[in-house]
């Protein structure tokens, strides 16, 4: 389908969410708000994974940094509870970007599975810091962000707050979309496909990847700022390894390289963790099963379903397609 059709559908989807969700039960509004914070994180991971080909297992670190910054400013310094909320948003993004800039210098020296490992280790260092730096982070008790900012809107009303988070989500989606459609974004995709060729063509691939890493960190920080106010509590649990791994699954489940796919993936993983768990005790099998089946049968994610069906129909009389035809999700193995 054409690009314009896709944009139209996404726009309709966004409008639909904005119109329908506030009229559903309070719990659905709550779940959607929470899912949208993670959707922003997932989209940042998609920028790295789907568009640049970098699989990072430590993106929760930037999420955490944004969240802790917000919480610490709100409780220790009483900053961010009025119009200065917008200042905190900017600071959160800058902190996320700064941390990514620092970590990127280490991480970019590796590739493939080593990149995965080093980002994992860096993420765990942030967890260790959150846990150990009691005086700043409250240790394992975490920090309570008890009041929502007041800049003319009554954000204690869940529906109003939903619209705020929704606005951030929509704007992030649009900004990231413009980014990936820009020449910069196109070069990222080129790097994902064939880094060597890009280098021969004269692109500074290291710089491109580094910038993508920093931007992803910035959006991760933004998601964290919103999460601090959505959840009301930030603890080391927020930056635990499972958060990073889940963010990767959200991207893959929805479809890497599609942005909106990560949002859909985040909605599904959230529905599993926070909604299915209210219904049945064996929901963890479903979660594990979703991981396994997605990877085996639908690595292109839900957004790749139409293409997969087409491919399946074409190949129905032949043996399963060779690996060369399938798009790998990460940069070339080492």
């Amino acid at each position: 389908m054409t690009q314009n059709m896709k944009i139209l559908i996404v726009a309709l989807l966004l409008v639909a969410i904005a119109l329908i969700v506030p009229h559903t039960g309070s719990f659905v509004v709550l779940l959607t708000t929470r899912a949208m914070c993670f959707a922003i994180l997932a989209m940042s991971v998609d920028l790295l994974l789907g568009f640049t080909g970098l699989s990072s297992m430590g993106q929760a670190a930037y999420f955490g940094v944004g969240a802790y910054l917000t919480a610490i400013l709100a409780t220790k310094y009483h900053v961010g509870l009025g119009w200065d909320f917008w200042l905190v948003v900017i600071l959160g993004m800058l902190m996320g970007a700064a941390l990514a800039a620092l970590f990127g210098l280490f991480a970019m020296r590796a590739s493939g599975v080593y990149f995965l490992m080093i980002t994992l280790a860096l993420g765990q260092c942030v967890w260790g810091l959150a846990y150990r730096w009691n005086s700043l982070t409250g240790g394992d008790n975490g920090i309570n962000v008890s009041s929502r900012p007041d800049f003319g809107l009554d954000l204690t009303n869940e529906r109003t707050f939903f619209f705020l988070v929704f606005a951030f989500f929509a704007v992030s989606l649009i900004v990231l979309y413009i980014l990936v459609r820009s020449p910069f974004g196109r070069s990222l995709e080129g790097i994902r496909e064939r880094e060597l060729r890009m280098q021969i063509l004269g692109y500074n691939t290291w710089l491109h990847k580094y910038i993508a890493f920093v931007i992803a960190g910035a959006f991760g920080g933004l998601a964290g700022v919103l999460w601090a106010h959505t959840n009301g509590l930030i603890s080391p649990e927020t930056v635990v390894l499972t958060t990073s791994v889940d963010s990767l699954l959200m991207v893959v489940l929805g479809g890497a390289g599609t942005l909106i796919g990560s949002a859909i993936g985040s909605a599904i993983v959230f529905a599993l963790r926070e909604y299915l768990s209210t219904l049945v005790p064996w929901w963890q099998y479903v979660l594990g099963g979703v991981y396994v089946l997605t990877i085996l049968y639908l690595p292109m994610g839900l957004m790749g379903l139409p293409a997969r069906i087409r491919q399946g129909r074409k190949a129905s009389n032949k043996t399963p397609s060779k690996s060369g035809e399938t798009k790998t999700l990460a940069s070339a193995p080492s």
Partner: protein
Amino acid sequence: MTRKLSLRVTSLLLGGMLAAGLGIASNAQAEELRIGYIAPVTGIFAQVGKDMVDGFQLYLTEHNNKLGGMDVKFIVEDDQGKPDAGVTKAKKLILQDHVHMFIGGLLASTGYALAPVSTAEKTLYISSVSSADDLTQRQLVKYPYFLRTSWSSSLPHHPLGQWACDNGFKKVIIIAADYAFGYETAGGFQSAFEACGGKVIQKIWPPIGTKDFGPYIPAFKKDADGVFTTMVGPMALQFPKQLRASGSKLKILGSGVSYDEFVLPFMGDEVIGDVSALHYSAAIETPANEAFVKAYRAKFGKVPGYYSENNYTTAMWLDKAIAKAGGKYPGPEEFIKIMASIKLDAPRGPVELDDMRNPIENVYIKKVEKKKMFGYPKDELWNVVIKTYPKVSQFWTEGKAKFLAHPVYDRDYPPCKFCE
């Protein structure tokens, strides 16, 4: 073709969301007591969560699923051992299931996560296990709809400090898990022990989950006569073994959780003689406790620990309170007052609330012995009670004002004056 397919997918998604949204919005019921319960059902604390729920359920089953004459709708939600999930579930229970109150929470961080929800939603939250000290101390003002029916982390360890003084301990090493619970239990012990003339000469904080105490034991100061330990879960199983294997003759003074009935059945004979302190022991020799232990063991196949007893007692407390309120739920403010007016005879002994909504209860100094109890045929490890301190409050003998004036027990408070 693909255009149609994508449109179909989109409209399915939209339709699905619509259906989900409309389906989920539910209506409230009346005339039954709706209790929401938050505990880990999956994840690494699943067994503790099960014990918590089982304790509460036992009381409900024994009383025809009624508390104070009201039929009970008991809804358990899984917080997976994560405070964030706990917040979601609490909100779900309040917004969707319209519970009158929500109970539970295991970790201190869960307690800190759920208490603000109670304030925001003006719904009663009862912590039946989560023992973070400050929730009923310096932070209580923030949580008018919160009360605790269990304990605060430092509560049983003050009397242990006193007991240590009275039993000849002069210099003690503290080794406690490096997190808030460890700090608060150790702080309680140190505060009371030093107040009666003892000296804490070393404080070691292994990360939570440490099972190899190799780095720590050789560094123990040689002139100590005892070691206070706060060992949680797997740590509790390994520390006594490793201490003995290192040739150390130090006597162990354990925090409540180092030897409680959750870990005791899996320990070996090396822990016989070890002393610990808690507001409950399965070996309390009263008819009420014997009945409780026997009923619990018959139903669930294990000896109940404080996770189970605290929840059983919470249910008992609710029973008496609803009955006193005339068989209906009078709203959180009124209900809290009623709860505070009841003096309960629980399996753990007499319990009542202090004016900061934390229990005043017995603390039992107990020693591990291998014997037959309550008519059970086999010799088993039991926490036999060797001394009881009655009516212990979270402030011990210091008095509320003085206690609240100093900071909450932390890694650096009380300071280690006698460490080198």
